[in-house]
């Protein structure tokens, strides 16, 4: 397929996934706040902090509170990380490859964009609570993914979409975990309390993982939650799952056998896959979850750069000595 088309499909899919994860992110915070004493109001700040754009936020909005953060993360057209901006980017990418994806998929992304745009236009969707609105965003994204899976031939176009979706998802699941780990653990006295359980359950709920977790582990414990969200091979939002399946799509695109590599992207992703496969939760926690997540995100970025260079013909910052590695 055309490199430009592959590039757009990959990003279309990443941006939809990004919008969905943002909605999950905000929703979990909303839920947490409803369930806890008022002194936890400061929950909103970490959300701004994870974007890395707190300077922009402060200049434009001042002190963080619920409605400001929602305006910022959902409706702010001038902020490129907001849900509306992500959907706009997803839709513009889809528009340039309308002929390469199915009409149904295009119509869905178009409708999705208009739904959120319409809500921002009215400031808040009428007759809809905030939580329902975020549910609707999640549903729209899932509908899009379902349509893509059911109407697009599972050839290289679909694999590029899948690759974008899973790399984005791995990144965002780790981020949700990172933020919550950071904000939930400051007070060791809370560990093991009802409040703690409540908070970790809502983290699991935000990635639709609560029920699966319960079946596997029953009681909530921080280590188990980390193990589940990072190392589970079967849960579709767990990091390991995402990496394994992204790796399959990457090999389907190039045609090289699994567990071998012909290009830098396959090499980098394969290494990451193996690292996770032979890791365990204790070593992750002992080494510091935050450090682990940082490292994971750097590696995911490097995979992304290699994909852009090899398949989309984009020049990136990849060091040339590394890109000469070839299998025989």
């Amino acid at each position: 397929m055309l490199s430009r088309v592959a590039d757009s499909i990959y990003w279309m899919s990443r941006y939809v996934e990004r919008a969905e994860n943002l909605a999950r992110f905000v929703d979990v915070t909303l839920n947490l706040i409803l369930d806890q004493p008022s002194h936890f109001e400061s929950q909103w700040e970490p959300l701004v902090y994870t974007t890395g754009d707190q300077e922009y936020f402060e200049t434009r909005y001042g002190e963080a509170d619920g409605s400001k953060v929602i305006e910022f993360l959902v409706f702010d057209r001038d902020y490129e990380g907001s849900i509306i901006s992500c959907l706009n980017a997803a839709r513009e990418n889809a528009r340039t490859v309308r002929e390469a994806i199915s009409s149904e998929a295009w119509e869905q992304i178009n409708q999705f964009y208009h739904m959120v745009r319409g809500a921002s236009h009215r400031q808040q969707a009428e007759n809809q609570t905030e939580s329902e609105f975020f549910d609707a965003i999640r549903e729209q994204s899932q509908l899009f993914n379902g349509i893509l899976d059911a109407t697009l031939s599972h050839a290289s176009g679909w694999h590029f979409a899948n690759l974008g979706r899973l790399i984005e998802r791995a990144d965002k699941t780790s981020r949700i975990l990172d933020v919550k780990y950071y904000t939930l653990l400051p007070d060791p006295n809370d560990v093991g309390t009802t409040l703690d359980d409540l908070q970790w359950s809502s983290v699991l709920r935000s990635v639709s993982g609560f029920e699966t977790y319960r079946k596997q582990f029953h009681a909530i414990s921080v280590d188990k939650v980390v193990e589940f969200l990072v190392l589970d091979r079967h849960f579709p939002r767990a990091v390991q799952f995402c990496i394994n399946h992204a790796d399959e799509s990457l090999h389907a695109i190039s045609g090289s056998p699994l567990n071998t590599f012909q290009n830098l992207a396959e090499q980098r992703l394969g290494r990451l896959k193996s690292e996770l496969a032979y890791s365990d939760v204790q070593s992750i926690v002992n080494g510091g979850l935050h450090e682990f997540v940082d490292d994971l995100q750097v590696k995911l970025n490097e995979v992304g750069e290699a994909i852009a260079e090899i398949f989309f013909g984009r020049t990136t910052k990849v060091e040339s000595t590394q890109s000469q590695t070839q299998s025989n």
Partner: protein
Amino acid sequence: MSGKLTFEGYQTEGFHDELFNNRGQPRPGAQVLVDFIDSLPEGKLRERQGAIERALHRMGITFAVYGDESGTEKIFPFDIVPRIVEAFEWNHIAAGLKQRIRALNLFIDDIYNEQDVLKDQIIPIELVTAAASFRRQCIGLRPPKGVWCHITGTDLIRHKDGAVYVLEDNLRCPSGVSYVLQNRLLMKRSFPLAFAESNVRPVFDYPIKLYETLVQLAPEHVNNPQVVVLTPGIYNSAYYEHSFLAQQMGVELVEGRDLVVKDGFVYMRTTDGFQRVDVIYRRIDDDFIDPTAFRKDSMLGVPGLMNAYRSGRVALANAPGTGIADDKVIYAYVPDFIRYYLDEEPILPNVPTYICAREEDRKYVLANLDKLVVKAANEAGGYGMLVGPHATPEERAEFAHKVQEDPRNYIAQPTLSLSRVPTLVDDHFEGRHVDLRPYILYGKDVWVLPGGLTRVALRKGSLVVNSSQGGGSKDTWVLADVPEQVVDSEAERPI
């Protein structure tokens, strides 16, 4: 909304109406439609009109409203009352179009090669060489089978006298056919029953006919030719159409930056490396397709494309250079070309045209500016035009000056009265002026799509149908000579 929508009280107001005769009775082909609309329950037609508009929105057939920060988008206006062309009329139009396209292709091939038409003094040489769209780079080109213009969208109008005239030939990159197909799809969903009974001819096979036309152009030794559509990109106003046609034909939609010329062949950059391209349906004007041959500042084109084309290693549709016959001065000679090349009388007349380069015509034009429409020879889309009867004395004086300065660049035509079709206006029907753009493909033979784009001037009294100036579109129903012809009856169920 007040009461039922019917045609009761509808006035043709002395214009030629496409659905009603001058006594206000439905024309024979329109009877089924008129009865059908009159029989609809209250509110139904409006509801269907609304449903169609929502569907267009959903399908993203929209354009951004310039300067609106909140991202508002609008659809191209669509009117639910179709225009009907009866079989006998269509047969006449189609025959006229086929004849015209043959003659125009012979002319273009001649003018870039033997130039017999100049030697035999059918048209003065200075009128040809002075045309802004004459491409010296095309001299000596021999496109396969002598066909230069494979895709045409001719603009027709019907005057008060009931006759159909050719207004423009549009031999470069005519757009709008995607609207013909989408309008039909939406109308079939809305009125399956009226379709079945009206014997409307189908238009759905245009993309496959287009594909067949394009595949035939491939260099002869190529098996499984790779066909692509070349678009200027997402910001072009016809981008939706480029994407739609590529999708419907099942071919790649490429931009200039996706293509590269290597060792004389054209390739596209794919995730598996370079792939050969054999046929390009280009929706980029001549000037922009190859910066090494035409405009050097073009960012849209492919350097080296013209050389690959010249050596027969890639085919282009349409061929470069066809714009020469779109020049409005050359247009005036098309009836002469038909007589000269085909030895036939033109079936469809031209709009009478005064050529300002001729002294006698110029005098007449300058003396009658208040009655005439003056047009620049190389403009389209309603630009560079003076509509005399509606212009101010200052505007007329300005055009008089322009004509005297550069007579070769101007022609004038009488102000024609365009026919009308009933159109939904608030809670009733009013007549609105329309034109008609049929689409013609020229591969092995000439094929005319039985349908076309009916553009409608939605503003009361307006004669300007261009979408940039308040125009919309309607579905165009070409009726079959029952029972031999195929009919578009496999309508979808109502939604």
